[in-house]
C-alpha cells in the first residue's frame, strides 16, 4: 500500500513538469473539441496523431493521448445534450434525458451534472485503477501463454459477439481485422505472409491507415453520400447552474453510476453500452413521484447524471486491462496499445516493473486531467458550444486534412493515401450494412499477439490443443468466455424490455 502511494507520488512529480502539464492540457482541450465535434471521435484523433510517437518522448505522448481519450468523454455529452441529431444520438443514453432537459430550457443544468458527474466518476475510477492495477499486474505475471491466449479470445468475443447488433456481422468484422493483422512477417517463424512481394507490406498495414480510413474518411464519404440533407437543430443554451435540488438528485446518481460503471471497465468485456443502460434503468426505477414523471417528458437530471458517471467510470477502469494485461476492449484503447507498440513497449504485467515511471506518470496525469477537464467544461463550456456552429461541409472537408497528416506522416508514402481511400470505401459499406468497426481495429492489433500466444501454448502442450483444458486457470477462463457470451445478452434483453415497458 505504501509502495503504491510512493510510486504514485513519483508519478505526480513526473506529471507536473511544465512540459507534461502542457501536453495534458493540450490533450484535454483537443479531446474535448474532438468529443464536441460530430464526425470525429477519440479513436481517430489519437490515430491521426500516432506519427508523433516517432519524435515525442513516450511519457509525454501517453499523457497527451490519455488526455484526448478522457476529454472526448466530457465533450461528447455536450453534443448529445445540445444537438438534436436525428438517429445518431438516440443510441446514447445521456441524450435521452439530456436532450429533453435542454428542450425544456435546462441545458445548463444538464451540462453541469454531466461534467461534474464525469469528474466524480473519473476521479473515483482513477483511485480504483491506482489501487487495483498493481495487484492485477502481480497476478497476471503468473499467467502463461494458454491463459493469455484465452484472455485475448475473451476480448475478441466481447468486442465482436456481445456488443453490437448481430453476432454474425460482428464476427465477420473481427475476422476481417484478423486477416489484416496477418499481412507482414509472422512473429514466430519470420515467414512473410500475404505480402505478394511488395516490400512495404512486410511491415504490415499501419494502424493509422485502418483507423483513420474506417472512422474519418468513411465518415466524410458517408456524410456526402447520405447525410447531406439531414438537418440538425440546436437547443438553446441556458446558464450553467445547478439548484440545491439538482445537487440532491445528482449526487446519489453519480455514485450509483460510478459503482455500476467501474466494474464493467475492469473486466476485459468492453463497451460502455451495457453499464450506461443499466445505470439509466436503475435511476428510473429508483425515482419517485415528480422526479419519475420527468423521465421521458421534461427530462430527469438523474437520467443524465447516472449514465454519464457510469460511462466515465467504465472508460477509466478500462485502462486496467489495457495496462496490466495488454488487452484493449475498445477502438481507442486498441489504438493506445498501438501507440505503446510504436515505442517497442508491450503493455502487460511486466509494464509495472519495466516501465513503472511511465505507468505512474500516466495514472497521475489522469487525476490532473480530470481537474483540467472540469475547468475546461464548466466555466468554459460556451467556447466549446461555438464549435457546434461550424457548418458541416467545412468541418468534414477539414477533417480530411488531418486524416492526411496521420496517414502520410507515418510512412511518407503517397500510396498509403490511395489505400486510405480504399479503406474509407470499405468503412462506408460497413456503416451502411451495420457491420461494427471496433472488431476490425481490435482484431488487427490484438491478432498477431494472440497468434503468438496460441502457438506458444500449443508448443507447451507438445503440439496438442488439449493444453487449454489441462490447466485449471485456462479451463476457468473458457467457462468465463462462455458466460460472457450468454450473460450480457440476457441482461441487455432485460434492460430493453424494462425500458420498452416503462416508456410504452
Amino acid at each position: 500500500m505504501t509502495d503504491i502511494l510512493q510510486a504514485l507520488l513519483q508519478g505526480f512529480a513526473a506529471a507536473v513538469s511544465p512540459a507534461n502539464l502542457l501536453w495534458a492540457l493540450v490533450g484535454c482541450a483537443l479531446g474535448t473539441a474532438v468529443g464536441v465535434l460530430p464526425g470525429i471521435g477519440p479513436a481517430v484523433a489519437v490515430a491521426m496523431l500516432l506519427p508523433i510517437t516517432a519524435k515525442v518522448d513516450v511519457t509525454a505522448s501517453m499523457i497527451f493521448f490519455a488526455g484526448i481519450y478522457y476529454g472526448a468523454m466530457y465533450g461528447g455529452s455536450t453534443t448529445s445534450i445540445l444537438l438534436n441529431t436525428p438517429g445518431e444520438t438516440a443510441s446514447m443514453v445521456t441524450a435521452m434525458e439530456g436532450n429533453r432537459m435542454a428542450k425544456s430550457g435546462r441545458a445548463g443544468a444538464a451540462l453541469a451534472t454531466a461534467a461534474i458527474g464525469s469528474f466524480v466518476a473519473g476521479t473515483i475510477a482513477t483511485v480504483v485503477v491506482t489501487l487495483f492495477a498493481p495487484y492485477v499486474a502481480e497476478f497476471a505475471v503468473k499467467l502463461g501463454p494458454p491463459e493469455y491466449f484465452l484472455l485475448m479470445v475473451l476480448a475478441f468475443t466481447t468486442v465482436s459477439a456481445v456488443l453490437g447488433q448481430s453476432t454474425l456481422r460482428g464476427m465477420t468484422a473481427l475476422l476481417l481485422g484478423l486477416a489484416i493483422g496477418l499481412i507482414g512477417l509472422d512473429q514466430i517463424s519470420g515467414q512473410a505472409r500475404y505480402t505478394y512481394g511488395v516490400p512495404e507490406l512486410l511491415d504490415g498495414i499501419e494502424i493509422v491507415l485502418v483507423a483513420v480510413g474506417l472512422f474519418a474518411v468513411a465518415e466524410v464519404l458517408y456524410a456526402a453520400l447520405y447525410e447531406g440533407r439531414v438537418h440538425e437543430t440546436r437547443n438553446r443554451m441556458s446558464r450553467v447552474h445547478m439548484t440545491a435540488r439538482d445537487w440532491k438528485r445528482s449526487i446519489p446518481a453519480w455514485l450509483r453510476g460510478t459503482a455500476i460503471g467501474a466494474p464493467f471497465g475492469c473486466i476485459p468485456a468492453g463497451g460502455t453500452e451495457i453499464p450506461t443502460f443499466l445505470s439509466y434503468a436503475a435511476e428510473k426505477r429508483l425515482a419517485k413521484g415528480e422526479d419519475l414523471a420527468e423521465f421521458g417528458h421534461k427530462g430527469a437530471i438523474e437520467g443524465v447524471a447516472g449514465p454519464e458517471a457510469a460511462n466515465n467510470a467504465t472508460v477509466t477502469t478500462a485502462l486496467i486491462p489495457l495496462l496490466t494485461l495488454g488487452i484493449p476492449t475498445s477502438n481507442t484503447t486498441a489504438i493506445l496499445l498501438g501507440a505503446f507498440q510504436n515505442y517497442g513497449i508491450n503493455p502487460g504485467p511486466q509494464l509495472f516493473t519495466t516501465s513503472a515511471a511511465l505507468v505512474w506518470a500516466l495514472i497521475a496525469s489522469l487525476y490532473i486531467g480530470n481537474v483540467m477537464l472540469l475547468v475546461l467544461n464548466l466555466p468554459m463550456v460556451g467556447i466549446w458550444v461555438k464549435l457546434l456552429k461550424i457548418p458541416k461541409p467545412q468541418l468534414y472537408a477539414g477533417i480530411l486534412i488531418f486524416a492526411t497528416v496521420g496517414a502520410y506522416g507515418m510512412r511518407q508514402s503517397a500510396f498509403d493515401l490511395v489505400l486510405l481511400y480504399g479503406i474509407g470505401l470499405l468503412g462506408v459499406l460497413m456503416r451502411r450494412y451495420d457491420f461494427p468497426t471496433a472488431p476490425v481495429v481490435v482484431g488487427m492489433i490484438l491478432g498477431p499477439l494472440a497468434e503468438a500466444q496460441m502457438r506458444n501454448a500449443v508448443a507447451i502442450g507438445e503440439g496438442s490443443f488439449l493444453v487449454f483444458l489441462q490447466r485449471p486457470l485456462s479451463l476457468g477462463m473458457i467457462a468465463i468466455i462462455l458466460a460472457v457470451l450468454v450473460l450480457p445478452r440476457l441482461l441487455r434483453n432485460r434492460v430493453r424490455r424494462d425500458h420498452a415497458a416503462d416508456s410504452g
Partner: protein
Amino acid sequence: MTQASDPRALQTLVGLGVLALALALGAGAVSIPSAAGYGGVGPNFLPWLIAGGLAVSGLMIVREARTGGFRNMEAPSGALTGHWSAFAWVSAGLLANAALITTIGFILSCAICYLLAAQGLRRAAGQAGLGPRTLAVDLATGCAIAAPVFWTFTQFLAINLPGITGTGWL
C-alpha cells in the same frame, strides 16, 4: 436507385464479397509453409482458420440476405439513396491529394483536397449558387487550415511532410 428498391440483392453481394475474400485468403494460405518447429502449429494455421471462418460467415450472410434480409439490422442513418455526385467530388479530392502531395507539397495538395471535398459536401447539403466566390473561399480556407497544420507538424513535432521547398515552411 437499386438500394431503395432491393436491399436484399445488395446484401447478397456483401455476403459474396466476404466469400471472395475468404477464397483469396485461402489461395494465399496455400503458399505459406506449415513448418511448425517445436511441435506447435505453423505459420499457415491461422490463415486457414480465418479463411475458413470468413467462408462460413460469408455463406451465413448470403443465407440471411436471401431469407428476409440481415437480422437485427439497425436502419442506416441518412437518405435512402446516395448523392453520388457529391461522393464523386469528395473522392476526387482524396485521390487528387494522393496524386499531388509529393509534387506540389502538403499545403497546396491538402487545400485542393479541401476545396473539392467542401464543394461536394456543399452540393450534398443542397446549397444553391455555388459560384466562383465559394470556390475562392474554400481554396483560401483550405490553405488557412493546411498551412498551420503543416507548420505545427514539421516545425514543432519534426514529422516529415512534403513541401515544394525543403525549408519546412512551404
